[in-house]
């Protein structure tokens, strides 16, 4: 990486929008501003002030767009370098034109993620924050943006620091008996290390469990709409997308391929997959489609099982529902369609639930007229967030490596717990080794703990000395 050059890119998502932002970062940012923006006084412009101006071609001074721009003098900018941000009128063409002007004026195109990388290398972000910025950029919905912002503000870092602090404290209580003997006047606490480590393991667990939500925020909740032919799957898809995407016909088995669409349901990015009707295949193409369906179900984060509520449940309905119901760890939503017609079926008629206590949530809708769609949106949101309230935790992890670090930490802590329980005959230096490894693993997310910090904790807790 070469920091002596200046990078530029379109900083807002590709596609039409109200405004688009061009970001330019590096030592040339100020000069580029002078070359492509007008009117500017001889004295230039002040840092962190919003100006109104015109982008001009650096060669022939032709006006390109009417813009607002801000210059951030380093190190007080996102990247830590001199940075120019130009708010242009949205639209890919205008943005491309302005970007090209900036490139001709001395910038080079930024590599993917290069702004964030520079910010990171200039110590403007820690690792968790850097990733959060990346998420913010790719966040696909409002809710996603909120999560990413929270992390940007250090929500995850805060949580991790709390966790490290608790671990350090526990470690200090164990290390003190290694660093000092009874003659040093240190009394070993009759402390409840075991309940403390259990508490910490639970915290690690619940943080690790946010991965599912974090990932859903980042990449979307994959919801497969399944059901027998002509249950109204394509109508539902169209209803949820608010546009006609799938071909709707009363002929069963119209949908032979898969339709995948991304949309925003209750603030959650959802990737909807409409599938071929589930029924014994009548031709080769359909058979292939149904094989794919089970594959899709396998990859899905959740399943929306749609049945026609205006018909009596058949043996086939009961069988199919039972098969989907019994897929382990697959959140399921039962939707009874065609509520505009007289109801001839309710959820009970789909047979005795294999586990009566955990019957999936049921929603009645009319895909055709839109009745019950709002209730359905709420139910999908709950399904995605895997909670009854639909509330979201204050810190979420969204990356697989973060989860891996937490899981590694948890394994170490579980071994330490085994040692602390006393049955394993594990000496304290081994318990300490496990806790140190847990600290190291957690440190992979925001930063490491040093031996000196361990001693600081010991000294702040214990009266020691000759």
């Amino acid at each position: 990486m070469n920091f002596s050059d200046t990078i530029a890119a379109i900083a807002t998502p590709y596609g039409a929008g109200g405004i688009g932002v061009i970001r330019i970062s590096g030592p040339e940012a100020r000069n580029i501003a002078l070359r492509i923006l007008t009117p500017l006084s001889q004295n230039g412009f002040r840092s962190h002030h919003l100006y109104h101006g015109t982008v001009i071609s650096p060669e022939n001074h032709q006006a390109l767009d009417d813009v607002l721009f801000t210059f951030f003098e380093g190190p007080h900018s996102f990247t830590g370098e001199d940075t120019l941000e130009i708010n242009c009128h949205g639209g890919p063409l205008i943005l491309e034109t302005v970007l090209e002007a900036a490139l001709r004026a001395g910038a080079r195109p930024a590599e993917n993620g290069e702004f964030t990388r520079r910010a990171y290398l200039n110590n403007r972000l820690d690792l968790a924050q850097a990733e959060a910025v990346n998420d913010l950029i790719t966040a696909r919905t409002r809710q996603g943006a909120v999560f990413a912002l929270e992390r940007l503000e250090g929500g995850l870092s805060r949580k991790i620091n709390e966790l490290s602090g608790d671990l350090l404290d526990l470690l200090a209580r164990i290390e003190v008996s290694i660093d000092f003997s009874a003659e040093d006047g240190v009394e070993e606490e009759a402390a409840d290390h075991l309940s403390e480590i259990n508490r910490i393991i639970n915290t690690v667990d619940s943080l690790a469990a946010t991965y599912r939500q974090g990932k859903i925020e980042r990449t979307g909740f994959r919801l497969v709409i399944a059901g027998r032919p002509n249950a109204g799957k394509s109508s539902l898809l169209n209803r949820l997308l608010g546009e006609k995407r799938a071909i709707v016909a009363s002929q069963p088995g119209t949908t032979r391929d898969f339709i995948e669409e991304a949309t925003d349901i209750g603030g959650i990015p959802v990737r909807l997959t409409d599938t071929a009707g589930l029924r014994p295949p009548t031709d080769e193409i359909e058979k292939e489609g149904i094989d794919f369906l089970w594959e899709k179900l396998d990859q899905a984060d959740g399943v929306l099982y749609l049945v026609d509520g205006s018909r009596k449940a058949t043996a086939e309905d009961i069988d199919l529902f039972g098969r989907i119901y019994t897929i382990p760890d697959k959140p399921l939503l039962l939707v009874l369609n065609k509520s505009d017609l007289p109801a001839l079926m309710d959820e009970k008629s789909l047979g005795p639930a294999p586990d009566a206590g955990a019957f999936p949530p049921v929603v009645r809708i009319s895909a055709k007229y839109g009745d019950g769609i709002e209730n359905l949106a709420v139910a999908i949101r709950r399904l995605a967030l895997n909670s009854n309230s639909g509330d979201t935790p204050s810190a979420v992890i969204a990356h697989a490596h973060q989860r891996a670090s937490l899981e590694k930490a948890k394994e170490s802590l579980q071994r330490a717990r085994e040692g602390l329980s006393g049955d394993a005959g594990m000496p304290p230096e081994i318990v300490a080794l496990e806790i140190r490894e847990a600290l190291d693993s957690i440190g992979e997310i925001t930063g490491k703990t040093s031996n000196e910090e361990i001693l600081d904790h010991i000294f702040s807790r214990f009266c020691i000395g000759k």
Partner: protein
Amino acid sequence: MNRQYDVIVVGGGHAGCEAALAAARMGCETLLFNITLDSMAVMPCNPAIGGLAKSQIVKEVDALGGEMGRIADKTAVHFRRLNASKGPAVQATRFQCDKQLYRLAMKAVLEKIPRLHLRQGLVEQLVVENGRVTGVIDQPGVFYGARAVVLTTGTFLGGLVHIGDVRYRAGRAGELAAWELSDQLKALGFETGRLKTGTPPRLRASSIDFSRTTRQDSDPDPEPFSFRSEKLRDDRLPSFFAATTTETHRLIHDNILRSPLYSGAITGVSARYCPSLEDKVMHFVGKGSHPVVLEHEGIETEEIYAKGLGNSLPPEFQEQIVHSVPGLEEAEIMRLAYAIEYDFVQPTQLKLTLETKIIAGLYLAGQINGTSGYEEAAGQGFWAGVNAALAVQKRPPFLLERSEAYLAVMVDELVTRGVDEPFRMFPSRAEYRLLLREDNATIRLSEKGHALGLITDDERRDIQKKMAQISGGISRLSAARIFPVEGTQKILTEIGTPPIKNPATLFQLLKREGVSYDNLSPLPGWEAIPDAFVKKEIEIEAKYEGYIQRQQEAISKRKGFDGVRIPADMDYAAIPGLSNELQAKLARVAPETIGQAGRIPGITDAAITALLIAIKKRENEK
């Protein structure tokens, strides 16, 4: 009279003695200065050598060919095994020695080395020419030339003793201090600071009612520190446990402003792990009592070291405080407790060899580097003495990795992190402490000691033989398989360990808690090992097996970073992406490897990435 030497060592404490011995034994004409030759290798505070993490250092110095362990073996009168209930990696040895015998034994060794010259005198000045030290000048103004100088000034550098409101210049109570040298070091451009330490009162044994205390006898069957020691003394002296009372705490509380620590008279920083009684009472208000340990200072003396009663209050209060402890009601104070402030040189100004960065040939060791403890001093003295000798002989420096020795951890911490309170070694500073045990110090280091010429061929052969027996024993046990059949299960039950479910090796059995090497004797494949050391090492290797592997994996993972050397002339200001603060930190320490840079407080992963990129760029440009 020849006044030209290879190495001059200034100060004959624990650091200075090791430095001078190492240099002279490595073939250097060496001159050792001490203010008075009657106080070489003095123990001015507690009468003990060793302790947690410290005994590892003693054994490492011994394995490399240093002296401290052998002197302690010759003069110890009370032996403790610390952390005996815990695993072998964090166990430690503490010897209480007869202080007078200790210093005389060390002096006798020093005097017998042909190339080692002792001289009584106070060094007042270093002679520096073109950034290189060329000699020293003593108080009468005589110049002594040297190619390397090791400063081991202890508490003598700018020493100031405090007892209540009274203070006076002294290196120890009643001894001269070195103030001129301190001024010169500052003038030469060294960043110095001020630290504080102290020592408790000495009491007269015959005035103590020991019946009111709890007697602690020495452990039976102690093992020597040194693998080169034949035997230990037969003399044994007990210690006694007492405790402070609410009256003690009231006395301190009511008169706290008479303590120079609380009146503002003392500005030096004291160690948190070694608080004076004032600090204990004031900071840990909830504790009703603090322990007091009464230790004999020697066989032929009445003096008793009253550990736990260290303070710097005026004499009249000291007396009342002593008398408030059960058993000490009538105790006679022979030496008052006192506090002492002294100068240290911020050790981030040193290279990993302990040579200063700004003056070539000048080495610092011991309390001048901000450390405390006899063992820490001896370890650095040895390290500095060896490196001074190697530099004089134009041989490559002697360095160890953090994964090889506590010594290396200590030097790395000092040079990389610097010091903001008196520095002591703790097991928790060593991330690889399962490998850095006191029991395996000879295995880890004696080969290196031999390479330095400080371990003899015979000693080396002896260790190599033991190492071969250890690895032979481990492979034999690993090859010996037993099966879950009735006869075997019966033997296991007799040993007191649960039966096996699957076939197992004897080595796996040895991993079990409570199973010793000799327990396995009835099982096929076992062979008697007469050497207790060899047997113990096999047992420890078995007990820690999986964990040792994990530590070794961690080492090889970090080797990458420790292996990346940073050019000495690196211009940190020219590295893009580093804040001014981090640039300053790196420039101050001038780390020798990326690994070391990563251990500088405040250095982020991002900074390391930027540094790596900068090194890469430089390489590409060349």
